[in-house]
């Protein structure tokens, strides 16, 4: 479990206990590439199926066509994916090689040597200079800074762009530069793991650096691989984890590929077609064997032997299996991969989704799941940084009961506060001091003398800046000594301990020593519920509770500040415990929290700060539009309930009373939560049919209980409610909620911007990261990264919807064309003695699948059924995508029927037109093939909603290409179809036949489509008609007049209705539970049902026009 690293011990490093620092991200080597890649590709069912077919085709007795017609496409498809893999792997190899061969300075036998990064052993001392990249995980030993500090940039590791300070272990403090070469010691650390926030280890130095004390090491003492050393002349450290065992290396991993609902549906349909194919094969196989025995034996010219080999009975079924294998289109995978990567490119390219402030375009990391965007049903969103800008501004404060900033809305301009500062009121001074120094901010002095702050938390940044504006300037940090300028006075504090912020503790404290009078102070800041209970018994906290309440009502983020003077011996005693806790290897975090708690009590609460976090542009409109599109929103935030509710109100998340109603689930014990949950559930059920906007609010504590003990009730609640606000939730709870919704078969989208959203983002069907101020961590983990929340609207309504529509058409069309040709083959077998003859030759079959029918449909990636503007105005249209109404078994049945109908048309017309003296095999086959090609061109044309030049080129150009290609083949004497195509094109009856096929095949389809389009139009059709006619679609807009709501605006009173105070009307439940409604979307129940169920929710949203 533990790893012992002997520092600078060449003996130990030669034993090669641990791997060297050779990074390898490669999946393959030159030798194993082919077998491994093939193995991976063949682990997919489709590929296995095609391989089986291709192998069967090698048996010439049963193959109806040349094996090349399957092997060709199969090898092509395999080659494409293998090449892609190989290229990716080669690039990985190159970047590994670059990293591995980078020259670094390492101490070997007491001398600094320049070696390649890949030769670093565990225990080596590595020297870095400013702006060097860290080659492996190091424990700091020394830096150029006299205080042992160094600054690193960790953006490659966690995406956070601010500088972080790292400090050398206390044991190494003050070791001479020269001596660092000879340092010896032992680092006791855990085995490699991927937690980049934890490193619980110990260090013991050997003589002559005699220090018997075990020195605890934390993540603060390390610099991890891929970080950069900044603002520090040099640093050195001992390598503890190398190669692929570094924290970065361990956290690397290929995430589980996500499967979209569309993909799942296609798989299902493929399975159904496969079953159908087996049935056809069995029926035809039996019929073939019967015919053979009854009829074919009489046909002397066939010369069936009286006694065949043992497998004789299998031959005909297998022939039909091969003949029918084209039913499952081999090209669908390639086509889909191709169009999906194009969808992703469209997202990357979209000019309207570029964050104008930063110039960062949107990016689709996962290119395979664009269709899912159009099928989102639930959006789970983080609040801070996602809905809001995460640009904190200090607005108000309450210091010992006096409210500042209430009138002007800006405490910095409040004359009273400025007066209080000028008069140096003690409370105010203390308050400002805490604002200035109770944090982990690093002041950076630029050459011009201006001070800028590097903060990890936006709140701290806001507080420090506000303090500076209020003349309490945090000027300098020199090791542990802080310097504060107040009205020209320089005050120095020595930081003794920092009790860091964790999401469990919800507060942070520092222990400082006033350098003037030697007093030891504990300064704390944190959430109200984390600070107020620690207040000293005598203090009245009523005013602070009120202040917090009042600020939260305005949607401001509050922090309570408190302090206490420590006795010298109390501190000493505690400090010892703290040190002990900090050097434990197991449960360190928990132990530290416990020790911290022993100090943080009896605090004197000084006041409350209120920080504003403004809403991002366009958030209310985006939420409004997306809610109209039938997407349910859940807000998951770590913030307070009141703040969350206010933000929710201001961004249209919930409606104010009386339209909206908030139901609260609370309680501290299991029973309370259970009761409150049941009450809420009853209300929910009874109001489900009413046009009311009901949302539930739950906090982290109650959620924990609900999820643990009342999973089912909570699941029902989740399916009933369109809106939920979950406050005070932890990252893992966020992920749990995603999991819960996913388990109810909903498509979930999680959007967030910070590290605490990463788990939720990875868990959800679609993860969207906002590349915001909390770093890029979320954006990296996400499938899509966007610059602003408002781009979500476009991402879903435009890109998601188009992608879904296009894929729905493309996939069903692929099946249609494969079935079409397969049905013709099946029909032909009935007039060829059920013997499994192929009507078409191998070349035609291959070209039909991979060329003639694939090219035209690929341009459907440009098809737009509705304008972007129309979709934005009528977001409700997204229902068609959400409910999967364009790709489901019933639409597929339509395509199946169409292919059957077309096959009958083509077959009947060609065998009758080319009967008797014209009934020549090659000619008939080309007539039937031309019929199919013409029909498919018209089918694509009929199903295309918008024709661009490219579409015309692909559809009609393909038709011309068909003739050119076949003329070319007809010119080759060695090909079976020598002169056939020239011969046919000269015959009037050929053209007459082809046009007959087109008219007979398309006429009824056009008539049916027109009838449905005009007399049974879908909503999409209506909008199309309205849009193209330039009709009065604008008047349909049911979007509420947009109000530029801000937090400052007076928020309409909203009472959180406690369920117990309410007399819910217990109406009989609707016979259809919402659950069954939702499920029914997928399976394509009649639209009316779906409409009537949904009507209420539409009208609910559109009512107040």
């Amino acid at each position: 479990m533990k790893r012992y690293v002997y520092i600078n011990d060449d003996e130990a490093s030669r034993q090669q206990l641990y791997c060297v620092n050779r990074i390898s991200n490669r999946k393959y080597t030159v030798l194993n590439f082919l077998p491994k890649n093939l193995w991976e590709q063949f682990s997919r069912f489709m590929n296995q199926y095609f391989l089986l077919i291709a192998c069967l085709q090698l048996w010439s007795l049963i193959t109806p066509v040349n094996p090349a017609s399957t092997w060709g496409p199969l090898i092509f498809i395999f080659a494409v994916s293998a090449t892609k893999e190989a290229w990716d792997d080669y690039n990985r190899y190159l970047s590994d090689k670059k990293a591995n061969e980078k020259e670094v300075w390492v101490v070997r036998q007491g001398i600094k040597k320049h070696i390649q990064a890949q030769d670093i052993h565990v225990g080596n001392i590595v020297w870095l200079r400013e702006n060097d990249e860290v080659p492996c995980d190091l424990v700091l030993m020394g830096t150029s800074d006299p205080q042992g500090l160094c600054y690193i940039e960790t953006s490659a590791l966690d995406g956070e762009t601010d500088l972080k300070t790292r400090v050398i272990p206390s044991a190494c403090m003050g070791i001479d530069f020269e001596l660092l070469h000879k340092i010896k010691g032992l680092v006791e650390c855990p085995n490699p793991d991927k937690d980049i926030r934890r490193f619980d280890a110990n260090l013991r130095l050997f003589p002559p650096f005699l220090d018997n004390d075990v020195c605890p090491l934390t993540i603060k003492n390390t610099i991890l691989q891929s970080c950069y050393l900044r603002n520090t002349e040099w640093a050195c450290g001992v390598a503890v984890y190398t190669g692929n065992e570094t924290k970065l290396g361990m956290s690397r991993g290929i995430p589980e590929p996500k499967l979209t609902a569309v993909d799942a549906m296609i798989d299902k349909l493929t399975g159904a077609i496969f079953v159908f194919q087996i049935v056809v094969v069995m029926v035809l196989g039996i019929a073939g064997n019967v015919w053979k025995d009854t009829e074919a034996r009489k046909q002397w010219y066939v010369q069936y032997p009286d006694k065949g080999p043992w497998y004789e009975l299998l031959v005909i079924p297998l022939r039909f299996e091969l003949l029918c294998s084209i039913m499952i289109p081999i090209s669908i995978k390639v086509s889909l991969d191709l169009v999906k990567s194009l969808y992703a490119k469209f997202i990357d390219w979209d000019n309207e989704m570029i964050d104008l402030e930063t110039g960062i375009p949107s990016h689709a990391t996962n290119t395979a799941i664009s269709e899912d965007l159009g099928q989102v049903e639930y959006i789970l969103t983080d609040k801070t940084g996602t809905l809001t800008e995460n640009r904190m501004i200090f607005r108000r404060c309450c210091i010992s009961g006096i409210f500042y900033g209430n009138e002007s809305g800006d405490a910095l301009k409040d004359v009273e506060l400025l007066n209080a500062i000028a008069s140096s009121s003690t409370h105010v001074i203390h308050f400002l001091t805490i604002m200035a120094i109770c944090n982990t901010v690093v002041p950076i002095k630029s050459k011009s003398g201006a001070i800028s702050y590097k903060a990890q938390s936006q709140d701290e940044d806001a507080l420090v800046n506000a303090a500076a504006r209020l003349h309490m300037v945090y000027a300098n940090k020199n090791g542990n000594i802080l310097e504060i300028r107040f009205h020209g006075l320089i005050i120095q504090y020595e930081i003794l301990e920092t009790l860091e912020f964790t999401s469990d503790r919800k507060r942070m404290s520092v222990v400082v020593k006033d350098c003037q009078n030697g007093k030891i102070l504990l300064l704390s800041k944190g959430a109200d519920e984390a600070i107020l209970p620690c207040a000293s018994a005598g203090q009245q906290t009523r005013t602070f509770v009120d202040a917090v309440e009042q600020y939260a009502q305005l949607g401001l983020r509050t922090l309570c500040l408190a302090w206490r003077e420590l006795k010298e011996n109390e501190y000493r005693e505690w400090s010892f415990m703290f040190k002990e806790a900090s050097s434990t290897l197991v449960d360190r975090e928990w132990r530290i929290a416990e020790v911290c708690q022993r100090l943080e009590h009896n605090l004197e609460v000084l006041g409350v700060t209120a920080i504003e976090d403004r809403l991002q542009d366009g958030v209310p409109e985006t939420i409004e539009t997306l809610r109209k599109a039938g997407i349910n929103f859940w807000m998951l935030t770590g913030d307070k309930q009141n703040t969350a509710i206010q933000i929710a109100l201001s961004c249209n998340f919930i409606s104010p009373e009386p339209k909206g109603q908030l139901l609260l689930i609370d309680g501290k014990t299991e029973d309370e939560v259970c009761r409150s949950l049941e009450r809420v559930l009853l209300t929910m059920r009874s109001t489900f049919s009413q046009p009311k906007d009901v949302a539930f609010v739950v906090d982290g504590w109650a959620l924990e209980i609900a999820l643990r003990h009342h999973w089912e009730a909570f699941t029902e609640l989740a399916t009933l409610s369109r809106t939920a606000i979950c406050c005070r939730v932890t990252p893992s709870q966020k992920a749990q909620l995603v999991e819960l919704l996913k388990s109810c078969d909903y498509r979930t989208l999680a959007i967030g911007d910070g590290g605490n959203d990463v788990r939720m983002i990875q868990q959800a069907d679609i993860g969207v990261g906002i590349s915001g101020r909390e770093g890029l961590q979320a954006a990296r983990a996400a499938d899509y990264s966007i610059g602003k929340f408002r781009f979500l609207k476009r991402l879903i309504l435009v890109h998601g919807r188009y992608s879904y529509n296009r894929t729905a058409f493309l996939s069903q069309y692929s099946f249609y064309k494969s079935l079409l040709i397969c049905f013709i083959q099946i029909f032909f077998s009935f007039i060829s003695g059920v013997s499994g003859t192929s009507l078409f030759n191998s070349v035609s079959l291959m070209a039909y699948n991979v060329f003639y029918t694939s090219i035209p449909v690929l341009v459907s990636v440009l098809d737009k059924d509705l304008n972007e503007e129309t979709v934005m105005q009528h977001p409700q249209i997204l229902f068609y995508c959400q409910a999967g109404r364009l790709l489901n078994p019933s639409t597929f049945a339509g395509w199946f029927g169409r292919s059957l109908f077309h096959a009958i048309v083509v077959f009947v017309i060609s065998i009758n037109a080319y009967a008797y003296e014209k009934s020549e095999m090659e000619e008939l086959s080309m007539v039937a093939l031309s019929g199919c090609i013409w029909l498919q061109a018209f089918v694509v044309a009929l199903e295309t909603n918008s024709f661009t030049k490219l579409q015309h080129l692909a559809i009609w150009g393909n038709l011309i290409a068909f003739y050119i290609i076949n003329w070319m083949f007809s010119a080759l004497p060695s090909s079976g179809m020598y002169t056939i195509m020239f011969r046919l094109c000269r015959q009037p009856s050929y053209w007459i036949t082809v046009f007959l096929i087109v008219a007979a095949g398309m006429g009824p389809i056009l008539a049916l489509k027109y009838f449905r389009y005009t007399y049974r139009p879908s909503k999409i059709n209506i909008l199309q008609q309205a849009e193209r006619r330039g009709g009065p679609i604008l008047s349909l807009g049911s979007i509420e007049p947009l109000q530029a709501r801000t937090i400052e605006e007076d928020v309409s009173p909203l009472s959180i209705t406690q369920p117990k105070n309410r007399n819910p009307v217990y109406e009989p439940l609707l016979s259809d539970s919402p659950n069954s409604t939702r499920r029914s979307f997928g399976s394509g129940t009649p639209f009316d049902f779906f409409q009537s169920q949904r009507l209420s929710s539409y009208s609910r949203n559109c009512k107040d026009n």
Partner: protein
Amino acid sequence: MNAIGAASSGGATAASDSSTTTKKNSKKPKYSRFTQQELPACKPILTPGLVITTFIVIGIIFIPVGLVSLFASEKVVEIVDRYDDGCVPRNYSNNKLAYIRSKLTDKSCTRTLNIVKPMKSPIYIYYQLDNFYQNHRRYVKSRSDKQLRSKKGESETKLCDPEGVSANGPIVPCGLIAWSLFNDTYKFKVKNKVLEVNKKNIAWKSDKSKKFGSDVYPKNFQSGGLIGGGQLNSSIPLSEQENLIVWMRTAALPTFRKLYGKIEEDLQANQQITVVIQNNYNTYSFGGKKKLVLSTTTWIGGKNDFLGIAYVTVGGLCLFFAISFILLYVVKPRPLGDPSYLSWNRNPAGHLN
């Protein structure tokens, strides 16, 4: 209503903003209509006018074309005579197989055909076989194109089993198709004057020049135990054996006609033609019919009413669609794109507030 204005103007400003910042930022993708999915597109919709016009136009074109085709087909004079039953002597009528298999029986048979309408030359003579599966998988593949093409490919008989190799070496032409060559012969007389049957140029020119080699002579043909169909003169190259070339163009349907020869003489109405048939080919074992067909031809080919009838039917159907859609349009007019049909604009309470 505000909202729409706001939304669209928002879009406009965003667009103009982006165009101004394009130069500043190199990370940005280049603006093109393709990348923005804004290629100019024509977006037709199925308006009643468009659809009804389409149907009417199709109907108007198809019905005349169909009538012309029917007329052309009617002009073709065709005489069909089924002789497989009639050519079996009475005493063999219960055992036709024995008759056809016996080498001793007299296979010749005389039939008389009445010319109903005058026939212009050239008159094509076809034999028609029914229930004969030239498209059977075992049969259709049993040939070797390489062998037929040139002498070099003589031994390419892999696909020809079971008629690939004889005791004396490879069979040329090999395979079941050649082996089962049709071998009934016809001799025509009008008023005791022999009608010349031209058997030249009945095969495709391309087949003669490219597919059947002039240096390939029949070899070991029909020399095995089983005799299938006709014999071939082994001194004539395959490219000149046109009956074989015609036979080797396999038919796609179990009922098919193949060209036997041409009569290059006009025949008058009410003339009687005497045909002397050598009834050699065995269709009795599988109940196939044999027919002799004399036919003239037009631009559409032989007599085939199907296309004409189908055209008239489809044309009529289109007109029917057109008329019913017009009626529907008149009886139940439905404005396209009426927003009131959008369910979310309908209020269940009956009023929009």
